[in-house]
Structure formats: C-alpha cells, structure tokens
C-alpha cells in the first residue's frame, strides 16, 4: 500500500468518522447525564430523511439541516418524556425510537416523493441543495511532498459539517469539563440526589442533555444525507448509531477519546470498502464481512473488560425519583 493510497483511505475514513463522531458526542452528553440512549440510530435516520427532504423541497441545505435537527429533537423529547418524566425503561424507549424512525421515514418519503421510500437525488436541485466540498486555501498549489498530499487529499476538500464535527470535540470537552453546566451535567449522571440536594433541577439538566443529544444526532443525520451522500435512502444510517454507541464505550465516555475511537471505526469502515488494500497490507485474503463486523467485535472485547475497564456513569439508566 503506497502513501497516496493510505492518505486516500484516511480521507474516506474521515468522511465515515464524522457521522459517528456527531452521534458519539450526542450519546456522550446524554449518557453523562444518566440517560442511556440506544436511539441514536433512529434520531440520525429521522434527521437524515428530513434534512434531505426539506433540502430537496426548498433547494436550500441549511433549511434542510434545521429540519433534520428539528426531527431529531422531536424524537429526543419523546425519549425525555419516557425516561425522565414518566420514569420508564430508557432502553425500551430507545428501541421504540429506532423503529419509529425506521418506519416513519419510509412512510413519509413514500407519501412525499413516491420513489419507494427515498428522496430524489439532491444534485438535481441546484448547487445549494447539499453541502459541497470546500477546497481550503492553497490546496491546489500544495506540492507533492508528504505534507502537500496530506493537506490536499486529507485535510482539504470536505464539507463544512466535517470541520464543524471536529470542532465539536474541543467544544464538548470545554462544556463538560470547564463550565458550571458541564459539572452539573456530569454530576447528575453520577449522583442525581446530590445535585437535587444542592437545589438544582435534575429534570431540567437531564432534559437539556437529551436536547443537546438531539441536536448533535440531527447534525449526524444531516451529514449522512446531504454531505456524505446526495439524498436519503431507506435505512441509510445502517447501524452507525450503534457503532457510535460502541465508540462511546470504547472512549469510556470522554470527548477526546471519542474522537480517536470514531476515527478508528471510520478507518475500519473505509478499509472494508477497499479489500484490495487490506490484502496488500496483511498478505492474505481477509473476508470483507470480517472487516464489517470488526467494530462490533472490538466493542464486545472492550466491554468484556479485557482491554481496560469501561465504567459507565453510575446513575446511568436509572430514573430519578425525588425523596426516595
């Protein structure tokens, strides 16, 4: 595998990592506040559909993005109602949200566009209907040295959401570990009773965490259908929400580790569409299915605690009951 191939695979890895990253950070906010969320997948899917659909209808991807975030937020509110207000089972609620999104997106897509559960291709709706690639300054003049190739092929030429995604990592870190809100949010995931005793509303904190989660899932979904691809197809999130969940556990619920975990899983996904490069690297034929399954296998190994222990927030998954 030569250097250029490696850089190109890395470039694909970055594209694949970004939706994982948004969803992973979304899960980070929610789970740090003590709300398990296995509905990341569904929220991404809903956002992917609505951002593509509205972008197609308005020919403006930014309005599409807002619609996607709105759809994802709506599902977040359902999750919040179920797991915070009505103190239901957060896992079951997440499962329900995944199916709700899987069904509703196809149902609405069929009703709006009559194309068998997909949206029309966004490339037919003018240049503003999807997020286009941005060529960074001097990228075209960059030479053919190692740095030049990396700058031109890897760093430049992504859509704006990719750069936003990478900026979200330090932002998340700052919010969680350097602000009062972040401290309280983490506390509510470890010991909600203590937060309550301090006179701070557990319910409000958890709802805001769930809302942030919704916004970030919205970005993840919008990137899928308007950045990575040009339009929505049925079930297009294809398990990315669960890989993001895996990355979150892999990262032990920390933002910077989440970035590395998502890049790793993105890289694995990029490798699975380049079996030739893998074969050249390891000198024998690796089944593509094994590469597909690798993120999940890795997660199970991590969860089993053989490579360091992943300890979730202590109050995760438990509804908070005052005075109990």
């Amino acid at each position, binding site marked *: 595998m030569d250097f250029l191939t490696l850089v190109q695979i890395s470039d694909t890895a970055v594209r694949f990592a970004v939706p994982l990253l948004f969803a992973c950070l979304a899960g980070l906010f929610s789970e740090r506040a003590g709300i398990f969320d296995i509905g990341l997948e569904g929220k991404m899917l809903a956002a992917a559909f609505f951002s593509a659909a509205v972008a197609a209808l308005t020919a403006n991807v930014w309005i599409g993005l807002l619609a996607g975030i709105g759809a994802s937020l709506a599902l977040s509110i359902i999750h919040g109602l179920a797991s915070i207000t009505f103190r239901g089972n957060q896992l079951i609620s997440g499962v329900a949200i995944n199916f709700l999104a899987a069904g509703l997106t196809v*149902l609405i897509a069929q009703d709006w566009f009559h194309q068998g559960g997909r949206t029309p291709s966004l490339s037919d709706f003018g240049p503003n209907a999807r997020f286009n690639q941005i060529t960074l300054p001097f990228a075209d003049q960059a030479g053919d040295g190692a740095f030049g190739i990396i700058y031109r092929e890897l760093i430049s030429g992504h859509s704006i959401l990719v750069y936003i995604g990478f900026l979200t990592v330090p932002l998340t870190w700052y919010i969680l570990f350097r602000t009062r809100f972040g401290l309280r949010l983490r506390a509510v995931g470890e010991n909600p009773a203590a937060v309550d005793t301090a006179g701070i509303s557990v319910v409000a904190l958890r709802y805001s965490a769930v809302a942030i989660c919704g916004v970030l899932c919205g970005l993840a979904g919008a990137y899928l259908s308007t950045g990575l691809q040009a339009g929505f197809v049925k079930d297009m999130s294809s398990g990315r929400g*669960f890989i993001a969940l895996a990355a979150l556990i892999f990262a032990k619920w920390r933002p910077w580790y989440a970035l590395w975990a998502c890049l790793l899983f993105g890289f694995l996904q990029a490798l699975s569409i380049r079996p030739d490069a893998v074969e050249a690297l390891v000198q024998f034929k690796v089944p593509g299915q094994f590469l597909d399954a690798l993120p*999940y296998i890795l997660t199970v190994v991590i969860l089993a605690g053989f490579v360091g222990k992943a300890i979730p927030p202590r109050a995760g998954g438990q509804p908070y009951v005052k005075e109990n």
Partner: protein
Amino acid sequence: MDVMPKWADALLIPLISILIAFLISGLVILAIGEDPIAALNLMVSGTFGRSEGIGYMLYYTTNFTFTGLAVAVAFHARMFNIGGEGQAMLGGLGVALVCLSVDWPHWTLVLPVAIVGGAIFGAAWAAIPAYLQAKRGSHIVITTIMFNFIAASLMVYMLVEVLKPAGAMDPASAKFPLGAHLPTFREMFATEGSRLFGSSPVNVTFFVALLACVGVWFLIWRTRLGFAIRAYGKSEPAALYAGISPTRIIMIAMLISGALSGLMAINAVMGEAERLVLNSVEGAGFIGIAVALMGRSHPFGVLLAALLFGFLFQGGAELSLWTNVPRELIVVIQALVILFTGALDNMVRMPLERLFLMFRRKRPEETTTSAKPAE
C-alpha cells in the same frame, strides 16, 4: 404500592396502551392521505376474508410466538435480550446444517433433530453475551445488539463463501432434501380439491410454538428453576440471600431465550423457504420485544400478542399491495406498541392508579396482592 387489582394491571393497562398506539397509527395513516377505517377494513378482509390470509397470519404468529417467548423468558430474569434477531439467524444456520447433513427420509425424523440444532445454535449465540454479563458485568443490551451485527456479517460470509452451491448466483444454501419438508396446514387439513389455506406457508411448526408456550408457562410458574428465575428478576439481593446463583440464572435464562429465538428458524427456514437465505428472520427478532411487552411476559399473553402482530403483518402486506401505504406501517405500529406498553407504561399507569385510589378511599382498606410481571 399495589393500588390496583390484578386484572387492571394485567389487562386494563396493556389494553389502554395498545388503544393509544393504534389511535396514533390511525392518525399516521390519516396524515399520509389514506383513510384509516378503510385501511383497517382492508387489513381485516385481507386476513380473515379467505383461509389463505389466515394461513399467512398463523405463519407470522408462529415466528413471533418464538421470539416473543424468548424475550419474555429473559425479561423474567430482568435481562433485556435485544439479540433475538441474531440468535434466530444462527438458529437458521443450525437448522440448515441439520437439514443438509443427511438425505432425510421423513419429516418426523428431521424435526426433532432440527429443533435441537436450531436451539443449540441460537443458545450458543446468546451464551457469549450472557457469560460476559454474568461474569464481567458487560451490559447485555449492548453486547446482544453487537452480536446481531456480528451475526449478520457471519451469515453473509457463511452463505456466500461456504453454503452457496457451486455455480449458484444468489447468496443462499442449497434446497433442503424433500424428506425435510414440513407438512403445511393445507396438506394436513385440506380435503381433496379444496383450496383450504391456499399457498400459505403455515405448517406443523405452529403446534411446536403452542407446545413452547405451555413449556415456558410450566417452566416459569411450576418449576423450581422458574421460581429462581423470577426471584432473581424481582430482587437480586433477595435471590442472592436465598442461595440463588446470579451467574447460573443469567446463563440459564439467556440460553433458554436464545434457544427459543433459534427455534423460529424451524418455521421460517425449514417450513417456509426450505433453504437458508439471507435475512430469513425479517425483523421477527425485534417484533418479539413488542410481543413480550404487550403480552406482559406471560406465555398466554405472548400468544395473543403474536396473533395480533401476525394479523398486522398479513394485513399490512395486503395494505401495501392495494394502497399507497408501504409495509413500513407495521414498523411504525410496532414502535408505538413498544413505546406505549414498554417505555411510557407509567403514562397510563399513574393516572389509572390515582383513579383506583379515589375509588378505594370510599371503601375500607382491603389488601390486594398483585404481582407485577417483570419488565
């Protein structure tokens, strides 16, 4: 805490939850420009209007009974097994290997062996998450989800690289031998010349599913092991104090759960397709979650819920055939049932409890013993 009589807890709450779920489903149909009443009529006539529709309904019911029982048994030990889908896929692999291993002379010989094969493969796929939960504390929900994806990749590999006959194009195993053909309802019940049950795939496995219901009921409520499972599900410290080993209970409950999921393949792989194809499970593993929640984890409730979902599945197929409503409507209904009977249970329960308390105050205090089923 038990302010409600048992019948309200077991019947009234699920009934109200399901009504809300169906009401919203009706609104969804309305929103996409179709008439919900007409849609319901079409679903009913498409299912009960002819015996073939009923046959299809019972075929789906058989699948959902197995996966529903699987989730229910795990629920009793307070384990949430989302891995039914993967376990059923592996069960299919087990059934296929049994069917393809020998040129079977008669279905009565192959059925017991296939049951064992499907159950063992399904249980094996549940065993690793169960062990990791019991011994290493890895959350079973996450690991079973991961195992669904791993199973999907494994099945693609097995079908494309191993089981596909040489020269075949589609990723599927060879056709099972004729002796492995399970009798369909038509072959069993239709008289000469009649079209009873038409070409529907419902077959003898339906009775295996009924037996499984009885078996699970007996296990959970009439055996020492069932008592231990329920005790562990209700209170881990109490079970521990009573000398019940959590590791043992988690392992056994999950193995039974995985085996039941695997049995679904008898119906879908052996009874219907008669060869192993990709995506033979078709989401039935997930529908098991809705079925178990709706049936309150009781085998009889599971059977009723499986019948309802069998009807929804067959009716939904008719609906997508004749109207602009895609099959995904079923997924929406399934989601709403899971949401309202599972996650938003308290939304119905809390006001209802208040109502019962209001009535209770007028009468002297009476003691009701109502056991909440495991959730």
